């Protein structure tokens, strides 16, 4: 795949379709790839990489990149295309300045997750069917694929590209995913248990803002949490601010716009399952206001800027689920 992408990129650079390519650049280790812009065939040959660790969603970079001179080529995985579309809808990306090549993805590995299984000194990692073989400083370790795969890929919602100029490989389908299982599990806990669960997770927050800064839906010029005028500005974890304000408000602000790309949880240095907040909103929206997938198109009204006169009353919250 990587070779096909590089030759595609070279061809598009050569025929002048694009002037730059955004992709991923090889790092020091097998897993530390960095999103990067390539401007020549040589740069592509030297550093372009697409493998089991190229998980970063590059859509958000296109806000900035699409405003630069010349057209840019981006390689988008199925999940990334949803983010891209949503940003088009919000007038954040200039579509004409981007050439999209859709690329397939069969899930990415998570070095942090592998490390959390006690594996250290990672030198390489190879997928082999349902297992992953990890070569380390201390020998070879094998672990089940599910234990090494990114959470967001384990509950992938779609292998379909919702926007592209061309595809490498076959397009996939929307998947019947089990992504709401954990939300449901939480819903079925008692309020006390839910409180304990979220308190223990959210209290780990160090307010590094990685979740916000990586989030394609969080593209505000100035975030309310950075704006002293907003009344909710806050820089560091203070008492219960993150638990009671930051993560709730952030999830609410992206509700109806979050495509469930899973980047928030991927980047959280404290492994807080932030996607479970967004998924709760998605699940509620689906069940209360009809199925809605943000980013699926560029024209539909998001559920929170829409209504139906027959919508349910807020007291439905009091009437269902577990208290």
């Amino acid at each position, binding site marked *: 795949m990587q070779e096909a992408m590089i030759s595609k990129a070279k061809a598009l650079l050569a025929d002048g379709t694009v002037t730059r390519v955004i992709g991923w650049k090889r*790092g*020091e*280790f097998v*897993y*530390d*790839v*960095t*999103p*990067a*812009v390539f401007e020549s065939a040589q740069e592509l040959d030297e550093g372009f990489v697409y493998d089991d660790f190229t998980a*970063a969603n590059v859509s958000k*970079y296109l806000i900035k990149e699409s405003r630069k001179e010349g057209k840019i080529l981006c390689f988008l995985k199925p999940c990334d295309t949803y983010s891209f579309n949503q940003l088009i809808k919000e007038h954040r990306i200039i579509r004409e300045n981007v050439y999209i090549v859709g690329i397939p993805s069969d899930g990415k590995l998570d*070095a*942090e*997750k592998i*490390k*959390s*299984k*006690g594996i*250290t*000194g*990672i*030198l390489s990692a190879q997928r082999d069917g349902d297992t992953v073989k990890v070569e*380390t*400083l*201390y020998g070879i370790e094998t672990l089940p694929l599910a234990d090494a795969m990114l959470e967001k890929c384990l509950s992938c919602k779609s292998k379909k590209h919702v926007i592209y100029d061309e595809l490498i490989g076959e397009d996939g389908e929307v998947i019947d995913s089990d992504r709401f299982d954990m939300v449901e599990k939480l819903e079925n806990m008692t309020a006390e248990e839910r409180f304990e669960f979220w308190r223990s997770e959210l209290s*780990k927050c*160090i*307010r*590094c*803002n*990685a979740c*916000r*800064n*990586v989030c394609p839906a969080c593209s505000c010029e100035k975030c309310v949490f*950075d704006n002293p005028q907003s009344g909710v500005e806050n*820089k*560091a*974890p*203070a008492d219960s601010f993150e638990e009671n304000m930051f993560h709730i408000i952030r999830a609410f602000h992206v509700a109806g716009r979050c495509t469930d790309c899973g*980047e928030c949880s*991927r*980047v959280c*240095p*404290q*492994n807080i399952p932030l996607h479970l907040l967004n998924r709760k909103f998605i699940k509620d929206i689906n069940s209360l206001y009809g199925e809605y997938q943000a980013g699926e198109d560029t024209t539909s009204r998001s559920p929170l800027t829409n209504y139906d006169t027959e919508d349910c009353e807020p007291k439905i919250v009091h009437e269902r689920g577990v208290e």
Partner: protein
Amino acid sequence: MLKIAIDSLGELFGKIASAQTLYIPADRPDGEAEYRKYEPGMKLTGRLNTVRSAKDFFFPQTESLVDFKVEGKNIEVIDPRKECEDFVVFGVRACDARSFTILDKVFLADPVDSYYKNRRDHGTIVTMACTRPAETCFCGTFGIDATAPEGDAACFSDGESIFFKANNDKGQRFIDSISSLLEEGDTAKLDEVQSKTREILKKLPLAALSTENFGGDKLNEYFNSDKWGELSESCLGCGTCTFVCPTCQCYDIKDFDTGHGIKRFRCWDSCMYSDFTKMAHGNPRLTQLERFRQRFMHKLVYFPKNNDGEFGCVGCGRCLSKCPISMNIVKVMKALEEK
């Protein structure tokens, strides 16, 4: 050397905790490790290091500086500080141990930061030599010996026992306080473990990384390097690297209106943030490039320039693991070295 069987660590921790607050690195359900206040039954983590460094105990992410109690039109000023109680941080790695040398240069230099000093005076750092360094480790680059950590007292494990060594008076007092549980032991096996570890350290992927091309005299050369644009291009401007870093020490001072008054507190800040050191006139570093450059120039050039060649990095590798887009000091060093 004095030692205790690993099986008896619980007893040791119990004894320490009975005299003062004890923090040890313990496992979290998600597989990461964090420092926790010791409670009976708690076990040392098997992970090499914690997500948050030992810095937090001496320079917490937020702390109250002064309170103003407002009643109608009256304002009363209250000092929220209390005399710190003695505490022990156990199991600090060599890299984190060195971070205190760096933090001390900032906070204990004149004018002394009394909040920090209060905690330094009352805290005992007990370090633990590494036996299984990770691929992200590069403490050796900064002259740190992972097998001989600094700190008030150091511990060494041979897999069966933990050996103790005092590095200073405070460390000696600590060892004395637990000496009833310790016994003299043979270090033959430990020596073997140590030399094995040293072999691994030499083979680490980043073992060759050197600071020889960095330091206070490189300001002009690197400040204007054209590499910064490419390096900072993908930076999200989040604070992950800063907040997991054991040596980052920048803070902001803010007021919080509680409704009854004002709490003036300081909190960690990150030079990667767009409002870092924002002043009345605006922001001195307007682009992410400038902010990104600031972080690495500070660690590799400005800090050694102002602190007798001491670099602002200890090679713990946290930022290598945690940066959302995997940009880090190692990549920066290597890129700047490329001519």
